[in-house]
């Protein structure tokens, strides 16, 4: 079994949570947020991680080397609201050992 990593998530109310995320469950950041219930059900991961909505948009505050953005994520973000230069979709960030120490902030619900 691989060790859990630490991830810091600032929720939509500005509260910071540093949590343990498993790296051996094929989980992505959106799923971690849901597992820890850091955003109300029905307000995040609406499409289930198909890159068909932007409800899991987050701002990446740490300098981690993230997976390269695919066309569908880029297109989805181009239609989202509150987008910043460091916006990513949480469902596209897999929890791997390299993501240890990741710090993100959830974008407002829209």
């Amino acid at each position: 079994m691989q060790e859990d990593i630490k991830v810091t998530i600032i929720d939509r109310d500005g509260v910071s949570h540093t949590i343990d995320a498993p790296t051996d469950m094929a989980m992505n950041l959106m799923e971690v947020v849901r597992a820890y219930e850091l955003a109300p059900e029905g307000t995040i991961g609406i499409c289930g991680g198909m890159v068909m909505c932007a409800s899991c948009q987050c701002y990446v505050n740490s300098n981690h080397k993230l997976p390269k953005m695919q066309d569908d994520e880029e297109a989805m973000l181009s239609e989202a609201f509150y987008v910043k230069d460091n916006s990513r979709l949480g469902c596209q960030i897999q929890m791997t050992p390299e993501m240890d120490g990741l710090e993100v902030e959830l974008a407002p619900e829209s």
Partner: protein
Amino acid sequence: MISTDILIIGAGPTGLFTVFEAGLLKLKCHLIDALPQPGGQCSEIYPKKPIYDIPAYPEILAGDLTDKLLEQCKQFEPGFTLGERAETIEKQEDGTFIVTTNKGTKHQAPVVAVAGGLGSFEPRKPLIPNIADFEDKGVEYIIKDPEIYRDKKVVIAGGGDSALDWSIFLADVAKEVTLIHRRNEFRGHLDSVEKVQELKNQGKISLVTPAEVIGIIGNGHVNGVAVKQSREEDKEFNIECDHFIPLFGLSPKLGPIANWGLEIEKNAIKVNNALDYQTNIPGVFAIGDVNTYPGKLKLILCGFHEATLMCQAAYQIINPGKKYVLKYTTVSGVDGFDGTRKEAPKAVVKKIN
């Protein structure tokens, strides 16, 4: 007034399968959905995406699943009120409920099954400061009647299928069509993208990319939009128009159901999962993604199971005290309300000499 046995709020997979299970018990169903077509999320969000955990289907596209469910329940002649959102519920003295939609359509039934998924789909509104002042005064988030755009100047914003498809459609109706998108690339079916390219080349659609609408101009009605273009250096200008149609997709909101007096937890309706998925209001059930109970999984296949058990409870409410025994469709066949009958072929008995 539309009268039925089970009034289903939400025409997604769970709601559609309810029609079939209810039909086996000779109960009629009517469905209300805010979307203009049945299928719920399967039709609206991901019709072309495959699902791998529908029993007996190793792989099925969400849109095809909707078609199959409609085909399966067809002989039970479900009624539909589409494009309307269930707004209020009132319990009557005789124990039935009257559900009224946002357009005033009234439905009466002794049993209400909320199969509303994540809620009704509402258009996502762009963050333009004065946009609310122009809603229904030239700003429309959903195109209901394309004829209102005839010979008008129209600006559409968005980069998905609906923005592309409506630009194509309105190119033949409106006087001018301008499509504005934040990037040069569009996220739509390839043939729609190619068609827009063709219409652009013919001068029937003006394309403004990468750009976004940042303000609305007008006095009581839309006269134009302020646009910010970001090609090389930021540039701002106005486009004259009669209508501005932002098409940025839909997002589900629990909406008016939240005010029906139902017990809500985590944006879902609490139900009795030990028995029949009834809510705290007797006669009102919640099935599929919209409900919650210990161990709940938001899966289509779980919605099917919940719908089946719920129909048994509905049968007891509608036919109190009546004896019922489970019948297998293979044994009893399926008698449709439309007079059709499906049944297993009779066994062939033949002697071997």
